Each structure stands twice: as structure tokens, then as C-alpha cells.
């Protein structure tokens, strides 16, 4: 059975040094859990942006929780560049591995299938491919003419972190149309899920809801976290808090500003409306 725990208990399950997959800002990103990870003082995470990274990753970088990042881009969207990421790149504090969005998806799909690699079109002649010495170019063995194609090795995250719109008492979690999140859960060794609310009944028994469910088979533990994506959006339940993200982008331009933000919104007494 998948246990129902607190957000802090979920955070305690993430060991220092773990390879952790995070969804992007617009897609069920577990920000309340990320705040709990910072409070727990996790260190040396290797984050994987699936396929890009945003606010949650910038928070973790600024709080000193991240030593490596694999991602296709880091951005706060309309709020601009991710300030702590940008600062870490300037000081060399972060080991960054650039990717491209479909390559991240492909690496996780290989892991979900249990195969060592999958091929992917494109990328030939880019500096991305030149830098990614872990990717290989082979000649398509099924083509009659020479046809170079890139092989992407499987990526198996130690832990996937997701904020679902709902979860049942069995540990099934509903992500709705964001079915690409199921692939992260399928690929990762452990998946920890916060859910906006716990519901009665069994989500897998409902034919209308089941297609948007990640089965408890993949879910190691669940915690309830109301407004757990805030200040990011959650499907059609609430929009992003654009004013908050703009204020963060401004504050986090300096180390002092970021520390003040952390003290107020992450380490300090939790605002009732937010957690």
C-alpha cells in the first residue's frame, strides 16, 4: 500500500545526492514539496528538468540544494530569466548539462520501456550534440542510403516529484491530460506525489478519470498539499500568481533579496493561504 504522509515526511524521503526529476512550471510542479525540501536542507541534488526547468528549480539552486542540473532550458516564462540559475552559472557553482526537450522525453521513454536507448531525429550539426559525448550517432541500420541518427541513452531518475490535482486513499493520483507525467513516474525508481486534495473511492475504478491517473503501482508515498503548486498554475484549478513570480524575479536578482524571499516564503511561518 502507498502510505499517505505529510509534505515534510515526503521531503525526508529524498536523500542528499539524489537524481530528481521535476515537471516544468506549467505542468503540476510540486512547489510546496520543493519548499519542504529546502527546509529539510537537502544537498547535492542532481535535478532533471522534464523537459525544462523554472521557478521550483531556481528556488532549489538559490537555496544551495543543487550541484548538477540536466535540462533543456531554465526560464521563469513571462517573469523573465531565472535569477539564481543565472547567478550560479556566472560563479560556476552549478554543473549544467544542456539538452533539448524531445531528448529528455525520449530518455525517459527508453527507461519506461526498459531499453538502453532510443533513437531521435534532429540535432546533427548542433553544438548541443558536440557537447553531449554521452549521446551517439549511428547509421540507421534499416535505411538503404546513409542515414545518421542520434541515440539517446535511457535516464532513470532516483526520484520523480509531482503535484497531482487529486489522490485517493490507495495512492492513485490524477494528473488529467498531463499524461507525459506518467512517463516520469514509470521511468523513476521512486515517485513522491503531493495532491491538491484527497478523494474518497478508487480513481482507477472510474472509467472517466482512469485515463488521467498514475496508478499507485508507481507511487511510493502521497501527501495532501492544498495550493501545492502555488505560485505556479494548476491545470484549470488556479492560474499562476504572476505578481508573486514577478516579485520573486526582482528580489532574487541579488543574494540578499533571495535570502529575504526564502525567509519570508519558505523558511518562515507558512502563510495559511499558500500551504
Amino acid at each position: 500500500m502507498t502510505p499517505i504522509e505529510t509534505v515534510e515526511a515526503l521531503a525526508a524521503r529524498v536523500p542528499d545526492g539524489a537524481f530528481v526529476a521535476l515537471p516544468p512550471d506549467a505542468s503540476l510542479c510540486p512547489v510546496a514539496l520543493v519548499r519542504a525540501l529546502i527546509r529539510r536542507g537537502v544537498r547535492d541534488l542532481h535535478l532533471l528538468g522534464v523537459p525544462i526547468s523554472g521557478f521550483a528549480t531556481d528556488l532549489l539552486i538559490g537555496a544551495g540544494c543543487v550541484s548538477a542540473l540536466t535540462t533543456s532550458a531554465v526560464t521563469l516564462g513571462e517573469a523573465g530569466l531565472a535569477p539564481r540559475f543565472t547567478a550560479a552559472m556566472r560563479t560556476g557553482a552549478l554543473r549544467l548539462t544542456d539538452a533539448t526537450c524531445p531528448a529528455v522525453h525520449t530518455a525517459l521513454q527508453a527507461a519506461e520501456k526498459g531499453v538502453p536507448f532510443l533513437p531521435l531525429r534532429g540535432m546533427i550539426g548542433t553544438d548541443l550534440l558536440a557537447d553531449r559525448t554521452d549521446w551517439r550517432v549511428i547509421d540507421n541500420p534499416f535505411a538503404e542510403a546513409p542515414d545518421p541518427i542520434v541515440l539517446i541513452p535511457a535516464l532513470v531518475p532516483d526520484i520523480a516529484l509531482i503535484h497531482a490535482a487529486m489522490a485517493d486513499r490507495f495512492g492513485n493520483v490524477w494528473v488529467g491530460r498531463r499524461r507525459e507525467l506518467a512517463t516520469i513516474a514509470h521511468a523513476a525508481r521512486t515517485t513522491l506525489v503531493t495532491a491538491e486534495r484527497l478523494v474518497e473511492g478508487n480513481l482507477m475504478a472510474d472509467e472517466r478519470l482512469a485515463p488521467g491517473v498514475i496508478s499507485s503501482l508507481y507511487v511510493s508515498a502521497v501527501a495532501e498539499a492544498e495550493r501545492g503548486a502555488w505560485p505556479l498554475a494548476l491545470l484549470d484549478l488556479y492560474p499562476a500568481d504572476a505578481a508573486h513570480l514577478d516579485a520573486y524575479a526582482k528580489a532574487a536578482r541579488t543574494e540578499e533579496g533571495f535570502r529575504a524571499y526564502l525567509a519570508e516564503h519558505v523558511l518562515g511561518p507558512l502563510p495559511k493561504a499558500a500551504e
Partner: protein
Amino acid sequence: MTVSREELLIAAIADLIAAPNPHPVRHAAVGAASPIPAHAVMLARHRGLDVRLSLLQQRVGNPFTEGARELFDLAGQGRIDLFFLGGAQIDGQANINLVGTGTPAGSSARLPGNFGSAFMAFTVPRVILFREEHSPRVLVPKVDYVSAPGVSAAGVYRRGSPQALVTGRCVFAFDAVRARFTLASLHPGETRESIRENTGFDYDEPTHVPETRGPSEDDRAALAGPIRAALEDTYPQFCARVFGARAA
């Protein structure tokens, strides 16, 4: 009312979308940071082109059920005909750089990253490059990092190449065979000299360079009316800025 810069760019891109091309546009996809391209696709549709627009960031009624992964799978299969790419740097061979400047790339200024460009440039047959800032800083002789190449060696799988580059000053057409831009039209207020001065790469210039054709009155009415209504949920700030506050 005078035509805004945004309306002019929307009309210029709509003209490119409808221009005769071996790859007709039936399905265009647009990301979050691209309100002008999204409006251009809708304007081309208003003018009669049978085109579907998939908005990656549409929050309610999103066209995908597997997020951006579905976008890339569609592109991989050739089900997306048109995509838009920009760049911190764009060079004269239509190479784009989304990672950063300096050597190594990002050491001088680090930008967000490649996104899907290293894939989409190969799998989508028509790409329109769009960057409003037109300066020697952006339009460089050679990019510091190739996120996506403008052209590829023979034998490398790719369905097409950039069709054109639209900036805040002009439109350049791209010839993939020669890997070279040609000045195609000047936005109002620009001259051949102002373009040459603000462009870091070399390009061709025909004897006659027309002014960029702006939107018609009908285009403008459609943009402020039905097209705004369709896109306002996705681009609220853009719509309010360009088309004014909504009457209560």
C-alpha cells in the same frame, strides 16, 4: 489610428505563412512566448488559409493530452508544418543560438537554453525566424553556439529550412541552397542603410526593396475582434497592450 509595430509584424508574418511554398501550412504550433506568431497564424486563417493552430500553453482547452511531448511526437511524424524560432544570436546562415554568448557559450551571458529547437528545426518543414531586436548584437556574422543549424549537410535528415527572418526593422528571405539571406522588405521608417548598419552578417540586396505590407483595415478589425477573443486567454498581457483595455 496608426498601425502599431505589433500589427505590422503580425501582418508581415501572415503574408509569409500564406506565400506559395512547396510545404503548405495546414498545422502551425506556437509556444508561450510567441503572441505575435500566434496572431499571425490566426490572421492568415482569417484571410482564408485553411490552417489549424495548436497553442502549447493554452491553459483551458489545450490541444494536447501529453503536453509538449505530444508536440514533439507530432513534429517527428511531420504533422506540424510551421514553427517559429528566435535566438539570442542569429547569423547569416540562419543558425540560431539560444544558449548564450561567449566562449564557451554562456560564459559571457547565459540564456535559458535550447528548448526544442535542436529537434524542431529538422522535423518541421517550415520555420520562420522571428526576433524583434534587430541589432549587430543579435544578428551576428557567426553564432557562438549552434542550437539549431539553418542548413545541414546532404544526407542529414531534415524536412526543410528557415523560410525567412522577421525582425523589428525588416523581413529577410532565406535561400537554403546558398545558405544566405536576402533583404525582402523594409518596415516603415527603415532604409537600406539603416538595415546594413544594424545587421552584423552579410546578405544580398535586390535593386528594388519594397516596404513591408502592413495590415488592411479588415485585418485590423479581425485582430481587434474575433482573433483577440480567441487568443486573449493565452496572451492576456499582449492583447491588453496592443488592442487596448477591454470595454466593460
